[in-house]
């Protein structure tokens, strides 16, 4: 178990180190996130109510798109030069590779969320009524999105499908995460009269199940890339 954690950590650090050097994901998605916030604000600036009510969904739609980019980039690191062979000849378990990659994508997504949530507060004058709920829902939803993203990007490469297939497969599968995260954020922002913690529980369940199923399936998927 300790070896598994060590290997996952090595993959996690390696992916982040490469991202830090290349800015492959952050260089694309941070400007995208910023412009979505600004243009959405311009479009609906006459209606504060619409802005407030749409904010939770808007945040998670942006995170969803960012997940696709981050997951694709994460897998591309392994397919360039077939570098994944370095991990496999090093004896790393595919499940550890999966966990390490999910960890790195999660951290990148959390970074984007760290820009989006304060951005929504500043640009749309939204109120965060429950910060713990925002944090918990973000953690659960982000892990849920990252696991599905990492799995599907590997499937798409494995079956030699076009890159455009990934969003088509990804969106229906993560729709429960999107709905639950939007509901939880709606409660945290005080715009929906729902129990945000119940939705967060669902997100946590989704995250745990995805992580376990993903780790179990990744070995087979990795064989095909």
């Amino acid at each position, binding site marked *: 178990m300790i070896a598994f954690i060590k*290997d996952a950590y090595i993959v996690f650090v390696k992916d982040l180190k490469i991202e830090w050097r290349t800015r492959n994901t952050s260089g694309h998605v941070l400007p995208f996130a910023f412009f979505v916030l600004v243009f959405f604000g311009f479009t609906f600036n006459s209606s504060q109510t619409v802005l407030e009510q749409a904010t939770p969904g808007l945040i998670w739609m942006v995170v969803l798109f960012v997940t696709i980019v981050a997951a694709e980039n994460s897998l591309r690191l392994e397919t360039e*030069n077939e570098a994944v062979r370095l991990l*496999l000849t090093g004896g790393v378990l595919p499940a550890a590779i999966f966990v390490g990659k999910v960890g790195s994508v999660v951290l990148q997504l959390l970074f984007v969320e760290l820009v989006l949530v304060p951005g929504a507060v500043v640009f749309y004058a939204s109120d965060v009524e429950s910060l713990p709920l925002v944090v918990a829902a973000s953690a659960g939803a982000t892990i849920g999105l990252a696991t599905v993203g990492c799995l599907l990007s590997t499937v798409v490469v494995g079956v030699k499908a076009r890159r455009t297939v990934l969003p088509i497969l990804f969106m229906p599968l993560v729709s429960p995460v999107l709905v639950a995260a939007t509901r939880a954020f709606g409660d945290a922002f005080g715009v929906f009269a729902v129990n945000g913690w119940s939705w967060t529980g669902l997100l946590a369940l989704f995250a745990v199940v995805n992580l376990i199923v993903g780790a179990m399936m990744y070995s087979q998927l990795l064989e095909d890339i």
Partner: protein
Amino acid sequence: MQAVRFLDGVVLAGGFPALAGVDLAVEYGEVVLLQGANGAGKSTLLGACAGFNKLASGTAEVLGYNLATQRAEVRRRVGLLDHTIALYRNLTAMENLQMWARMARIEAVDIEYSFDRLNITENLQKMPIAQLSKGQQQRVALAAIIARRPEIWLLDEPFSGLDANSRELLFDVISEAAQAGATILIASHDTAISSGCDARIVRMIAGVVVDGKPAVGQSTILR
């Protein structure tokens, strides 16, 4: 005792049989030169021996491990050098090998020895792989193999793109490995290489082995 054994091995590449029923036996410590034209299946055979290409039918064993069910075990024990390099472009040579050594539980001193042996200077060690020339990248990939001292060396066109010095260095390294008892399979469509080798020559055409008579005496690589 056989290090590699294929019996009617079939490997598909995009639905096409890149190996179409290979029969091959390689003894421990033997040096084998795979020859054949482009598309003959040499690279696919080496990839299969390394545990990276899936066997569609037939039976195959490498180091006693079944290639159908124990490919992960095989991968840890063989060293494959091919055109893919298998290094992270945006990590330096040193970072790539250090990371790999941590995973493979290999001593840092072995990495240093490998770099020294292949004349990979400190400056080169600190450069990202993407900034190295093809020959330098190949030397770094070879350094990983040397550090591990695998029981089987699988070398796919190892001399292509190398200058005279690097070629000579590679010959030395392969000779040392052969003398240390490693089993070595070299794939090349360059027939000139065979004139410098005292190894068993195995010829492949269209995904099958057509000629693979055993070598006389002990196989060694000679310059």
